């Protein structure tokens, strides 16, 4: 069983977690062009690398950020949003 560390509850089996996708900056909807908005809505960074992602520990509904190597499937760091920098 793969283990992931919840910033609040500590190491837990990965089956307790829910993956929500990459952490992305939303462009301002009032000023963004149609192309910029479509790119934000649909496009993804599909190539492998170390990525910042939204995850949720479902048992406690804790949302947090994980830095993960998506090629090796290694979780490098987890922290609450805004607390990792």
């Amino acid at each position, binding site marked *: 069983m793969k283990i992931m560390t919840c910033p609040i509850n500590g190491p837990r089996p990965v089956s307790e977690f*829910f993956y929500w996708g990459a952490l992305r900056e939303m462009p301002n909807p009032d000023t963004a062009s149609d192309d910029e908005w*479509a*790119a934000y809505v*649909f496009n993804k*960074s*599909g190539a*492998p690398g170390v990525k910042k992602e939204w995850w949720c520990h479902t048992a406690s509904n804790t949302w947090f950020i994980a830095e993960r190597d998506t*090629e090796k*499937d290694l979780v490098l760091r987890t922290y609450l949003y805004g607390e990792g920098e």
Partner: protein
Amino acid sequence: MPWRLLRFALSKEHPEPRMFTAHEKLKPSYDAVIIGAGGHGLASAYYLARDHGIKNVAVLEKGYIGGGNTGRNTTIIRSNYLTPEGVQFYDESLRLWQDLSQDFDLNLFYSTRGHFTLAHTDSAIRTSRWRAEVNKHFGIASEVVGPDFIKKAVPQIDISCGGHAPIMGALYHAPGSVARHDAVAWGYGRGADQRGVEIHQQTEVLSIDVQGGKIKGVKTSRGYIATEKVLCAVAGSTPRILKMVEIDSPLYIHPLQAMVSEPVKPWLDPILVSGSLHIYISQSARGELVMGASLDPYEVQSTRSTLDFPEGLSAHMLDMFPFLSNVKVMRQWAGMADMTPDFAPIMGKTPVEGFYLDSGWGTWGFKATPVCGKTMSYTLANDTNHPLITGFTLDRFRNYALTGEKGAASVGH
């Protein structure tokens, strides 16, 4: 046939020519380069050489022929999709499949079994009816059947699924089939090879030379090739190639795992899919039960397997077939599925001139192998999208004109 085999016993040297010509060097230039020697890439090469007379073609493969998703899928062929675009496209593919063995002079073990998409809920029945009506409109054998019909086709099934999720009916698609997947890649590969196409295995693409928005060449691990046309048919590696030509796309990669049991006596003729239990099963010609489930729940760009997968899949399988509890699992594996937001592929021309995409084949690419070869070779030869793929182009996202095929995905992903 037995007399032909005898030659192999009596001859000191292998008495047949090899399947493919081994080329020691890359030529300095080709009319077209195809990245990826899987089913789609080799089919495109085959039809380019056979139907369009473009024979100065190199197929570059990082690993070996058919070693990616072509050799990792569960070999199901069907055309009971949901959108008119999808139905017409896959139906053309199914027609091509049916005489491919003749075309190649190679046994693909193409076997028509009948395909059931089991419905355990009212909403699943509703989607089944919707699909059946769209299918019938396009002349495809597809109908909603009741539990009695299913029980007759598969007497071993527990229709109540242990009481958890009773089967209320199914979408039945009589032409649903299975085929031997390696043979497909090998058949197309040999056909292309005989017509002058060069297949280079163990040749990785390192970068792509784009100047002024046009393709100029490809840098590989075995040297530089000049070319003006590149077809990218690399499934789960597509985002890596797109990075080289600086094209953004909605593609995301999740592993899709599958497994087979030990061989058992033939007992399961049709192919069964259950969207509610997230499983599918068929029996191969060797007697192995070929089983799959839904995508892994998060992004990974490798082909690692997990233990959670056979655990979860087996639990659901036992709901349907409790007697399988004594059958052993032989192997499991994974492939990298290149998923799109609307569950339809991304095909055709791109913003880079001379760069053509055959991607977004996620969990549904094997059945489309022949028609992808046909349509992509046409697109590349004429520099115009084939009429069958106009609903699948990359710019549909920019235009918010998606082709919603999710209702027809084999299991709810």
